[in-house]
């Protein structure tokens, strides 16, 4: 079943066309990894999927709802699409616990007690239960990102979007975050991941997409795209990073 779909998606910043008509279909439980050179439009593409970026043309469809329809209640759909950012974006004025419980308390009418129970379960699953009362400023990068994942999961989304979740981390912390993501994927979460971690892509992706200059240049299973890339630009890119 299709969870998320973009149709002829275009995005321009002023004169600059950043996305040039992208078609993508993500099935339920599928893990799609997007790779590509800097400035190719990966982040913009991802941010269009929950309309953090306004779409210039084309459609974004989540479940059966058209996000680009102006009548659409976008907040309702965003609850179902979690997002994890490169810079974590934890709320610095709130404790780890409050970071996680704030949205469910506001949007799901959870009681404080239920929200705490939910948060403790999520913190446990990302290995952060001992930091529930800490403030973000006292956490390491890896810990912050794990809390950020727990925060996104607190709305119990069906789809998770990751924008270079490990790029801002010291190398020794990359593993702990990838481990959490692997577990999520194994539990059947539908995921779209922009990353430079080719190991993760090889191991976890059902499909890898190579983007360049606002186009999807090539896509396929990881062993196929990494092992036998068809397009010259894909080969060039892979040569440079591998």
């Amino acid at each position, binding site marked *: 079943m299709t969870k998320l779909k973009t149709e002829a998606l275009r995005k321009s910043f002023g004169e600059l066309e950043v996305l040039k008509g992208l078609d993508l279909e993500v099935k339920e439980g599928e893990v799609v990894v997007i790779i590509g050179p800097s400035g190719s439009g990966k982040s913009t593409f991802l941010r269009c999927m*929950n309309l*953090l970026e306004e779409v210039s043309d084309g459609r974004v469809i989540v479940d059966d709802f058209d996000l680009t329809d102006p009548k659409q*209640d*976008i*907040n*309702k*759909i*965003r*609850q*179902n*699409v*979690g*997002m994890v*950012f490169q*810079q974590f*974006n*934890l*709320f*610095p*004025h709130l404790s780890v616990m409050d970071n996680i419980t*704030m*949205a469910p308390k*506001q*949007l799901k009418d959870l009681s404080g007690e239920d929200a705490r129970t939910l948060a403790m379960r999520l913190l446990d699953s990302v290995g952060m239960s001992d930091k529930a009362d800490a*403030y973000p*400023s006292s956490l390491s990068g890896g810990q912050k990102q794990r809390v*950020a994942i727990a*925060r*996104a999961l*607190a*709305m119990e989304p069906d789809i998770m979007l990751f924008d270079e979740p490990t790029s801002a981390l010291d190398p020794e912390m990359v593993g702990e975050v990838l481990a959490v993501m692997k577990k999520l994927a194994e539990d059947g979460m539908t995921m779209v991941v922009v990353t430079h971690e080719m190991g993760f892509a090889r191991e976890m992706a059902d499909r890898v997409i190579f983007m360049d200059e606002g186009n999807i240049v090539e896509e396929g299973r990881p062993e196929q795209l990494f092992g036998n890339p068809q397009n010259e630009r894909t080969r060039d890119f892979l040569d440079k990073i591998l």
Partner: protein
Amino acid sequence: MNTNMKRVTVFGLLLLTAMLFTSTMSPLKGHAEEDTYLIATDVTFAPFEFQNEDGDYVGIDIELLAAIAEDQGFEYELAPMNFSAGLQALEANQVDGMIAAMGITPEREESFDFSNPYFESGPVMAVRDDDEDISSYEDLDGKTLAVKVGTTGAEFAAELAEEYDIEISQFEDSATMYEDVLAGHSDGAIEDYPVMAYAIQQGLDLRFPEEPELGDEYGFAVNLGQNQELLEMFNAGLANVLEDGTYEEIVERYLGDSSEVAPRAGFFGLLQANFGPLMTGLGRTLVLTLVSFAIALVAGTVIGLFSATPSKVLNVIADIYVTILRGIPLIVLAFFMYFTVPQLFGIQITAFTAGIITLSLNTTAYIAEQVRGGLAAVDKGQLEAARSLGLPYGVSMQKVVLPQAVKIMIPSLINQFVITLKDTSILSVIGIVELTQTGRIIIARSYQSGAMWIIVGLMYLVIITLLTKLSNMIERRLIAND
């Protein structure tokens, strides 16, 4: 999301308007059925009107008005304000009449109806006792003369200036004018003879090099064509008090040889004697500051949020508001609120209300800018993270962005609070008796400006220092939460 946001912001606008206007203005009162007249008078014009040490208004005008009102059986309330402000208030129908040692001149008769004259006096020039240079008007070449804005004395000075090379300094009250001469800034002052004579009798080191000019007759004024019944009562009452000797008694009390001379107190004596009025003035300064700042904090936050929303319309509204209100000097805004607005809309506003509106509107613009800056300083990833969770724009701002912005803004808000507190002193121009105006009033009766301005300055300094310390403590408490 858009319609929701619009609803929120429209609500905000309504609230703002309601707060600033509806609650503070009352419809024009009909004086025909409600026979308490509001009578403007000058604040500091001894011996015609001034405050004694108990804070009561006394003086020839005040007692004459009281005697006439009693004789005629009408009720009135005094509205003391600077002379020129009083003229404007009368023209704007903010008050019903004015008694302020006002000379009856042809120009004034174009705007006002005057009673029969009740006092005769002409302007006179005073110079420093120890000033040997000036013994007649001819010696004024190249000198500076102090006058009071809008007075007959000012007109006389202007005539002198046509003949001689004189520079003219304009002042709002007599005491400041005398001080200017005593301090050596001006070489002479022109003022009505009885007023100056009274001041010299009270111990001011001035003398008259020339005889008083021929005069001017003082009259009670109402706006042209308005309140004629009040004018008639005044004339009838005046005739009665002249006849029964009350008039003479009053004038004798202030200008006769037997009138008592107030002893000149030292610094502490001055402070002690005026402690009550000073504290009342300080209290009013604080109320003005706190109320205006509280309103401005709410309104400024709303307008600051306007400029941070994606809505272009709201951006423009915020921009227009800030541009206009930062572009108008506070004193002009105060005059506009107190004199122009009532004429435009046919409503009556008390000076205190006009003062609070003025200060709130002005402070709102500055706080809005600080809020805008504070919001812009919050990483935009914060709003995105909140929105990505499905939180609506309003909730995201309220729970995530605003709390962080507030922390960034606290130092500049404390600064703004201090500025607002000091700005209250400007509101004295529309007759609000806050701390600065209290100082002026005390100087008007004690003629001790040197010591008084030190006292007033110290009071501002102490209260501002205390409040700043307190705010810093709160700030530290808030930041420790991180």
